[in-house]
C-alpha cells in the first residue's frame, strides 16, 4: 500500500470526483438513476477514503505532512504537484468529503428548475475536486488552481439553478434576475481577490531566493518565512504582499467589508449550492490564512493582525445587526455567516495556538451548522415556495420535525455550549484575551468583549427568526395545504450533521486532537513564541 500513503490516497480523493464528472458526461441524460448512483458512489468512496486517511493519520506527528507526494509539475517555475495533509487540513478535508455525500443524498429528490441532474451533479463533483484539492495542496500554484477551480461550478450552479426573481440594482436601469446578479458578483469578487493573491504568491516566489532557490513549495516557504526572509524589515513590500494575500483570502472568507457578495450568492444559490458554499467554500479563505499567509509572512501578519481583528469584530457585530433587518430567511442565514466567520478570523488574528485552533474548529462547526441551516431553508422554500419569514409562521405546527431540526440548528448556530458552534466562539475569545506577545493586548481584549456581545446579538436574531418562522399560528394562506414533513432523504442528509454537531460539541477533541500539535508547531515556528515561562497576567 505504498502508493496509498505516498500521495495516492489524497490524489484519489481529489481527482476521483473529477473523473466521475467526466464519466458522467457520456451517460445519457435520460439515465438519471445511473447518474445519481454514480455520483453517490463516488462521493461515498471519496468520503471513505478520507476516513481511511483520517484513521491512518499519525496523530502523534500531526505537525508534519503525511500521505505526502511531491512530483515535478511545472518545471519552468519549479512548481510541484505537492500534496499532503497535516493536522490542520485533515478535519477540513474530511468535512469537505462528508458534506459532499450529504449534498448528493439531499439532491436525490430535490431539484431546482431547470432540473438537469446530470449537469448539476457533474458540477458538484468538479466542485469537490476543487475543494478537496485546496485543502491538500502544498504548492502555491497548485493551491491557486484548486482555489479557482471551485469558481466555475459554483458560478453555474447559482446562475442556472438559482433564484429566478428579479432585482433592481442601484446604478443600473433595468431589473435583472437575482441569480445573474449574484452569480456574477460572486465570480467577480472572488476573482478580484485571487488576482491579487496570485500577485502576492509571485512576489513571495521571487523573494525566496536566487533562480535556483525560488520555490512555490508551501512548507519550504514557511521555513523561509520563519527565518525572516519575507519580513518587512528586510523586504520593503512584505506588508503589501500580505495585503495582497489578505485581499484574496478575505474576499473568500468573507471578511467585512468584502462580504457583500455573500448574502447575494447564498440567497440566490440553489440549496445544495448554498450548503457547499457555506460549508466548504468560505473555509478556503480562512484556511488560506492559516496555511499560507501566517506561516510564510509571520512578521507582516503581526502588523496586520490588529486590522484583521478589528475587521473581524466589525464583521461580528455588523453581520448580526444586518441579520436583524432581514425578512428573507435564507438571506438571514447568509448574513449570519459574516458574523460567524468573524469569530474564525478573530481567532486567526490573535496569532496564538488557541486562536488558530479556535478558527479551525470554528470552521468545521460553521460548516456543519450553517450547511444544515441552508438545507433547512432550502427544504422549507421547497414546500412553502417563499422564504419570507412573515409568511412562514407556525412552521412548527405544520411540520414539527422540520421545526424541531431548525430549532436545534439555530441553537447550534448561536453557539450554544455543548454543541459544535460553542468552541469556535469561546476559544476565539480565549485567544483574543492573550494575543501573541507584542500585539496590543487592550485592543484584542476590547475585541474579545465586543465579540462576546456579538454572541448576544447572534442569539437575538436566531431566536427572533425562530419566533417568526417556527412559532405562532400558521398563516391563513396555508389552510388546506398538506405539507410533507421531513422526508427520508432529508433525514439521511441531516441526521449525520446533527449527530456530528453534538459530538463535536461534547467532544471537541475530535477536531482539536488533530489540529493542536500542528497549530502549535506552526505558531512556534512562525512566531517563535515557544513555551513561555510566565503566565500573562491581567493588564500585562
Amino acid at each position, binding site marked *: 500500500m505504498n502508493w496509498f500513503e505516498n500521495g495516492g490516497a489524497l490524489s484519489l480523493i481529489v481527482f476521483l470526483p473529477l473523473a466521475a464528472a467526466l464519466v458522467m458526461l457520456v451517460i445519457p441524460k435520460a439515465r438519471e438513476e445511473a447518474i445519481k448512483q454514480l455520483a453517490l458512489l463516488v462521493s461515498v468512496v471519496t468520503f471513505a477514503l478520507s476516513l481511511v486517511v483520517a484513521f491512518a493519520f499519525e496523530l502523534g506527528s500531526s505537525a508534519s505532512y503525511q500521505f505526502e507526494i511531491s512530483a515535478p*509539475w511545472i518545471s519552468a517555475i519549479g512548481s510541484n504537484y505537492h500534496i499532503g495533509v497535516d493536522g490542520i487540513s485533515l478535519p477540513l478535508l474530511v468535512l469537505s468529503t462528508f458534506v459532499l455525500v450529504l449534498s448528493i443524498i439531499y439532491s436525490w429528490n430535490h431539484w431546482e428548475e431547470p432540473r438537469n441532474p446530470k449537469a448539476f451533479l457533474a458540477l458538484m463533483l468538479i466542485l469537490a475536486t476543487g475543494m478537496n484539492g485546496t485543502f491538500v495542496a502544498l504548492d502555491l500554484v497548485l493551491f491557486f488552481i484548486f482555489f479557482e477551480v471551485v469558481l466555475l461550478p459554483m458560478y453555474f450552479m447559482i446562475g*442556472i439553478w438559482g433564484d429566478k426573481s428579479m432585482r433592481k440594482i442601484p446604478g443600473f436601469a433595468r431589473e435583472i434576475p437575482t441569480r445573474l446578479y449574484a452569480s456574477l458578483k460572486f465570480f467577480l469578487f472572488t476573482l478580484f481577490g485571487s488576482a491579487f493573491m496570485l500577485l502576492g504568491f509571485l512576489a513571495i516566489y521571487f523573494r525566496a531566493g536566487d533562480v535556483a532557490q525560488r520555490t512555490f513549495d508551501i512548507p519550504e516557504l514557511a521555513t523561509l518565512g520563519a527565518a525572516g526572509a519575507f519580513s518587512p524589515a528586510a523586504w520593503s513590500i512584505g506588508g503589501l504582499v500580505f495585503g495582497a494575500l489578505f485581499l484574496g483570502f478575505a474576499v473568500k472568507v468573507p471578511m467585512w467589508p468584502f462580504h457583500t457578495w455573500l448574502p447575494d450568492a447564498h440567497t440566490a444559490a440553489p440549496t445544495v449550492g448554498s450548503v457547499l458554499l457555506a460549508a466548504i467554500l468560505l473555509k478556503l479563505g480562512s484556511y488560506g490564512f492559516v496555511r499560507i499567509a501566517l506561516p510564510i509572512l509571520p512578521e507582516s501578519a503581526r502588523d496586520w493582525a490588529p486590522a484583521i481583528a478589528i475587521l473581524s469584530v466589525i464583521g461580528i457585530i455588523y453581520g448580526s445587526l444586518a441579520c436583524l433587518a432581514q425578512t428573507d430567511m435564507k438571506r438571514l442565514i447568509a448574513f449570519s455567516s459574516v458574523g460567524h466567520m468573524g469569530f474564525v478570523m478573530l481567532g486567526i488574528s490573535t496569532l496564538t495556538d488557541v486562536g488558530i485552533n479556535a478558527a479551525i474548529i470554528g470552521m468545521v462547526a460553521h460548516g456543519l451548522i450553517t450547511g444544515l441551516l441552508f438545507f433547512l431553508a432550502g427544504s422549507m422554500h421547497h414546500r412553502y415556495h417563499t422564504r419570507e419569514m412573515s409568511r412562514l409562521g407556525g412552521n412548527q405546527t405544520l411540520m414539527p420535525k422540520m421545526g424541531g431540526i431548525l430549532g436545534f440548528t439555530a441553537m447550534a448556530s448561536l453557539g450554544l455550549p455543548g454543541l459544535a458552534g460553542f468552541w469556535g466562539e469561546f476559544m476565539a475569545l480565549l485567544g483574543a484575551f492573550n494575543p501573541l506577545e507584542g500585539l496590543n493586548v487592550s485592543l484584542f481584549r476590547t475585541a474579545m468583549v465586543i465579540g462576546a456581545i456579538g454572541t448576544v446579538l447572534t442569539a437575538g436574531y436566531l431566536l427572533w427568526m425562530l419566533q417568526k418562522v417556527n412559532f405562532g399560528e400558521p398563516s391563513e394562506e396555508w389552510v388546506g395545504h398538506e405539507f410533507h414533513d421531513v422526508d427520508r432523504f432529508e433525514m439521511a442528509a441531516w441526521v449525520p450533521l446533527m449527530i456530528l454537531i453534538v459530538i463535536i460539541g461534547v467532544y471537541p477533541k475530535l477536531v482539536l486532537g488533530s489540529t493542536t500539535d500542528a497549530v502549535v508547531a506552526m505558531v512556534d515556528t512562525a512566531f517563535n513564541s515557544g513555551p513561555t515561562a510566565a503566565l500573562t497576567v491581567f493588564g500585562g
Partner: protein
Amino acid sequence: MNYDIDYLALAPEIVVIITLLGVLALDLVLPRRLKYFTGAIAVVGLTLSAIPLILLAVGDLPVSMFDGSYVVDQFALVLKGLFLVSGYVVLVMSVSYIESDRYYQGEYYFLILSSILGSLVMASARDLIAIFIGLELTTAPLFLLAGWKKGDLKSNEAALKYFVLGVLSTAILLWGMSMLYGATGSIQFAEISAAVSSLRSGDPMMPLVVLAVVFVMVGFGFKVAAVPFHFWAPDTYEGSPIPVTAYLSVGSKAAGFVGMFVFVYLAVPSLSSVWGPLIWVMAALSMTVANLAALRQTNIVRLLAYSSIAQAGFMLVPFAAASLAGEGALAAGLEATVVYLVIYALMNLGAFAVVIVAVQRTGSAEIDSWAGLGRLDGRLAVLASVFFFSLAGIPPLAGWYAKFKMFTATIAAGGTWAYVLAAVAAVNAVIALAYYAKVAKAMWFDDPPEGAEEITEAPSGSLVLVLTIAAVVTVVVGVLPNIPDFFGEATRTLLATVGG
C-alpha cells in the same frame, strides 16, 4: 560576399510557396464544384511544411543567411510553428464557411497562405527590409480578405478601415525605419544595435532615434491592435468573414508581436528606456480601454475583437515589465509573452470556431441569439464555455497559465512600475471576466427563444476537428503547463544567438 542559401532552412517557406502557387494554378483548372479541393491542398501543404520545421528543430541551429539578416533559430521555429498551426486551424475552419457562402475559394486560400508566408518570413527576418516586406506580405492579403464578403456592406467597410489605417501605419513605420537607417547607417539589427548602444542621453541623435523607435513600434502596435492603434480592430473584426477575423486576431497579431520582439530585442535593446515606457502605456491602455469597452458589446465577434485587444494588452505586460528590469529580465518577458501568445492562439481560435458554428446555425452574431444554447446544444455550449473562460484565465483552463506567466514575469521584473502594471492587469482580469461571463450567461442562464428545438446534428467535420483539438489542448495545457513552457523556453534563443 557569400549569399548562399540553405534550402533546408528555407524549406518551410518553400513548401508554403509551392502550395500557394499550386492552389492558384489548381483553381484555374478545377470546375466550380471541385474548388473546395484547393482548400484540401492548402491544408495538406501546411501540414507538409511542418515536416522541415521538425527536421530543422532537431538539426543544427541556428542557421544564418544573408549576412545574418535571415536567421532560423529556435525562436523562429517556435513562432513559425505557431503561424503554421494557427494558419492550419484557420484553413480548416474556413473550409465549411467559405464553401457555404460561395466565396472565391482558390483565391481565398491563396491569400491566406500568402499571409502565412509573410509571417514565416517575419519570424526569421533580422533586418529592416526583410521584416518590412514580411510584414507587408502578412498584411496586404488581409486587407483584401477582410472585404471578402463582397456583398456585405460591413465587410466592405471592414476592408476599407483596415486598409487605410494599415497604410497609415506602414507609412509611419517606414519613416521610423528610414530614420533608423539614417541614424545608424545600417538596416541590419545587430549593426543597428551596436550603433544605438553607444548613444547616450543628450546626444543630438537621440531624439531622432527615439522618434524612429516609437514610429516603428507604432507600426507593430497597429498589427497587434494595441491601444491607441487599435481603432480598426473592432470594426474590421466585426465586418470580416469570421475565419479571417480569427486569423487577424491570432496569426496577424502574432506576427505583430514577432516584429516587436525581434525589433526591440535585437535592434534596439539598449533603448529600453524608450520602448519600455511605450509598451507600458500601450499595455495599460489596451487592457483598460478594451476591457471597459467590451462590457458594452452585444455582438459576439465585436466582443471578441475588444477581447483580443485586451489580450494583446496582457501580452504586452511582461514585455513592458521586462524592459524596466534591464537585460536579465528580457528573456523572462519574452518567454512569458510567447507562452501567452501560444495559449491565446489556441483558445481564441477555439472561440472563433464556436462562433462560426453558432453563426451558421442562428445566422446572427448577437449575444442574445445565443440564449439558451446550453439547453439547445449542450456540447457546443460546453466548448464555448471552455474557450471563453479560458480567455478569462480561469483555472484549470489553459488561459490561467498565460496570465500566470504574465504575472510571473512582471513580478520578477520588480519595481514600482512593474507592480503597478501588475495591479492594473489584475483589475483588468476581473473586468474581463464580466464580459466573458456575459456570453456564458446567455448560453446557460437565459431561456432559449420560444419554439427553439434541441440541436442534434453535428457541425461539419472540419469544425468538429478544430473544436476538439482546441478544447483538448486548452484543457491539457491548463493542467500540464510544461508544454507551452517548452516552447517559451525555446524562444529564449532569440536573445542568446544575436548579441545576447
